[in-house]
């Protein structure tokens, strides 16, 4: 049942622009606290660059740890965004409207954060040049383009560029609204950014076509990005558990699972902070929770296939790894926590309508999913490397150092801070979309009952 509230254009403008003109109580305190943690992360990273990677817990044979886990996690979160926005746009799901902008913004900032992680992991960020760019033309020394580690930057940069375009094109009408309501420097900036938008039929038509085209183009890009990230692992035959054909779709669906959950978390925070109850309604949380049930169950199916086919060939290194993951502490404890938080707790909860329509429970369950999904990436990367070698005397283990913990924590604070700062500059719910929803809303009379209806978009 659609629970929409009839709002005028003026009310929509007032409500959705509130975030840009007013600061809710505690807003700057939150920003300050987040900025402090980010600063700690920056200082820690600087200290690590100065002293070297010895400050981390990385050691032979586990040379990928918290940073790479965090890289995969944020790439995953970035998927939801555009996936949710593009697919819901293409399928014209009516309930997409309040979710799209938050999803796109989360994509943008999580992608930027993800890209920082390999740089930090390199220990000497400038060495990344050697990794990606030809660095000695005279002697013809080129990076090895046959490795997925080189495909990664290409894919991620393409994704970032198209995401920026995607966000920007959708923002133009709203920027024009801001331009018309501001003065001084802000007015000048919005004037430039709005590209002379006047809301003519032609402009709307072009904006709509651009949105559809970008949606269609960005979907293959989003699939390719996480597939390529998965191939960082899947193409490595030396690490038994990684060389699995299902890794690409398994990573993509896992990314969608964690990303959509992340979008719901952000939507709930925005709803609370900017009093957007009339826009981010319980029906939207309900619909997103139903989508999450499907996504999570598909993800679980892929996870089970990955696990079972790991055992299928009954090869000794693979069995040693599975034994480590399932029966030795702390890995076994982490594995149980991961399964409970990523699936066994949230999904049965979402089966209940009351949970799907509870802001509090949706916040708890979606945060739970992301705790689980972070652990999932950690459990894919670290135990596999710990058991990489054929000889037992070269097996190792890994524990993160305080530096790594601070930097990873700072990455979470950075994404949240950037989202909140973005809300000060641009509306996080598309104004034009909210108005269009009001135009398309209708009702039909069936007997004595008035049924909510929507004009069909084609």
């Amino acid at each position: 049942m659609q629970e929409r509230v009839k709002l005028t254009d003026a009310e929509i403008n007032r409500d959705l622009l509130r975030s840009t003109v007013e600061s809710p109580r505690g807003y700057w305190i939150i920003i300050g606290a987040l900025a402090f943690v980010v600063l700690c992360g920056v200082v820690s990273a600087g200290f690590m660059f100065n002293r070297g990677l010895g400050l981390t817990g990385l050691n032979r044979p586990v040379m990928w740890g918290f940073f790479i886990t965090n890289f995969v996690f944020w790439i995953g979160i970035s998927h939801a965004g555009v996936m949710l926005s593009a697919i819901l746009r293409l399928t014209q799901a009516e309930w997409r409207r309040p979710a799209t902008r938050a999803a796109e913004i989360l994509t943008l900032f999580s992608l930027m954060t993800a890209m920082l992680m390999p740089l930090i992991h390199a220990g000497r960020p400038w060495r990344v040049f050697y990794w990606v760019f030809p660095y000695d033309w005279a002697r013809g020394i080129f990076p090895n383009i046959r490795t997925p580690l080189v495909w990664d930057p290409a894919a991620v940069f393409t994704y970032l560029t198209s995401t920026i375009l995607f966000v920007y094109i959708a923002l133009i009408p709203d920027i024009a609204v801001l331009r018309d309501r501001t003065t001084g420097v802000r007015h000048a900036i919005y004037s430039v950014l709005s590209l002379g938008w006047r809301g003519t039929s032609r402009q709307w038509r072009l904006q709509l076509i651009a949105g559809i085209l970008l949606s269609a183009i960005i979907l293959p890009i989003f699939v390719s990005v996480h597939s390529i990230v998965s191939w960082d692992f899947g193409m490595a035959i030396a690490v038994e558990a990684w060389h699995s054909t299902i890794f690409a779709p398994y990573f993509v669906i896992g990314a969608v699972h964690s990303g959509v959950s992340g979008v719901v978390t952000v939507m709930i925070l925005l709803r609370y902070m900017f009093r957007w109850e009339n826009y981010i309604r319980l029906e939207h949380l309900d619909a997103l929770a139903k989508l999450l049930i499907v996504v999570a169950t598909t993800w679980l199916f892929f996870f089970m296939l990955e696990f079972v086919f790991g055992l299928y060939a009954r090869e000794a290194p693979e069995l040693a790894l599975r034994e480590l993951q399932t029966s030795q502490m702390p890995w076994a404890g982490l594995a149980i926590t991961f399964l409970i938080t990523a699936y066994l707790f949230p999904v049965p909860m979402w089966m209940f309508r009351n949970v799907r329509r509870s802001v509090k429970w949706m916040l708890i369950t979606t945060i739970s999913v992301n705790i689980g999904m972070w652990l999932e990436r950690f459990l894919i990367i670290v135990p596999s490397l710990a058991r990489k070698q054929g000889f037992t005397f070269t097996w190792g283990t890994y524990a993160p150092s305080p530096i790594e913990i601070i930097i990873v924590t700072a990455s979470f604070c950075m994404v949240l801070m950037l989202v909140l700062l973005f809300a000060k500059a641009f509306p996080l719910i598309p104004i034009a979309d909210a108005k269009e929803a009001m135009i398309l809303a209708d009702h039909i009379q069936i007997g004595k009952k008035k049924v909510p209806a929507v004009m069909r978009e084609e």
Partner: protein
Amino acid sequence: MHELHHFPPPAVLNMTAQEVTQDRLENQPAGDRFKRAGLLLAVIFAVGFVTVVMKIAGGFGSRSEWGYHAAAFAYLLLTAQSAVLVSVALRMVKAHWRRSLARVSEMFAMVGLFNFLVFIPLLWVLPSTENRLSLWFDLPGNSPHIWDTLTMAILVLCGLGLLYFASIPDLATIRDHSEGKKMIRYRRLAMGWEGTPKQWKSLHAGLGVLGGFYFMMLIYAHAMISVDFSMSLVPGWKDAIFPTYHALSGLQAGLATLIVTLFILRRFGGLNTYIEVDQFWALSKILLATCLLWFYFWWAGFFTYWYGRTPAEQGVLQYIMFETYRIPFFSAFVLCFPMPFLILMWNIMRKTDWGPTLAASFVLLGAMFNVVRMYVPAFAIEDPTSHALKVMPVANWPSISDILGFAGVIAGAILVYMLSSRVFPLISLWEVKEGMLLQRIRTFLKTEIRVMGKPE
């Protein structure tokens, strides 16, 4: 908002509920054309049946002789049994345009019953799991025989339950509009349906549960069958994505089956009032998405193997893709991805009834080549106990009896579907009428648009 109105309003909106009932009850499929087609299919089926009986009489000693029979069984699993899922999925997402095709899709559950019979002889040629790789690890050697049979049986029962449950209101309608023996027969089938609010509530809840269960069982069946009857028989084939690829091929082929069936019913079955271009347009977009997904899943599996280049992986690629069975593989590839993609990428093609049907026909043909390259090689290996293909077996090309057997299975499936249409109305009357209640045509600015009720 742009070009709000692409298609004329559905013709059915110009009719009353009574007219819909009358139209469908008076125009059940029959006539000379129906009978002639039925007779031809019965003959092909009978010939195929004889070849299968002769194979059974010859014993189950050589597994390779059953390769094409296994492929025929898998083909029906991929096409007919997966076609039921279209209705289930569309009902779950409450797509209004599904209403007139729901029964056409669900009736493929009857073909599932037929396919179960096709499945039974294969149990005798499936080797035990002693000393070979299997999903069943240390469980008794006959685990695949037991669990796969149970899986297929539950899938079939679930499909039949879904078809029957979704048909009850229509069976009651036929009961109320018939006399004599027919009325008695339908009275039994309608199980006292009176259309009370409680009955409607139970119907909707039951359809939700059965649909969800069918969905899970079908995916599970694809996973089990693909591994036990195909992958685990080929030494060195360890491919975690394969069950999902198989299930996805099923979704694609099931959708294609439905599109081709709808085209035939629209053009030759007199259902053009209910099955309109709108349905083809919507289905074609999903078919396009499944074609892209098909390619992605194939590519993810292939690429990991190709890049890994271990000897076992190389052997599998040579055997089922690039050397021994390269003809069926390349045929399947071209027909399942580039051909339908090149057709469906154009909106102008999607907005016809023949464009999606042409693409769907390619997919159906591709799915046939695909099951041949997956199952025939697997059944051609006499000793599946080694860890990698040491000697590449020669290709097992079809004999006359294999072709007749394959054709017989397909003809039998179509015949079962046609005969089922004599019992169940091909259009889900209650769903179409429900859709009529929830749709209105209204004027918006200078155009007419459709307004869709969203009661849930």
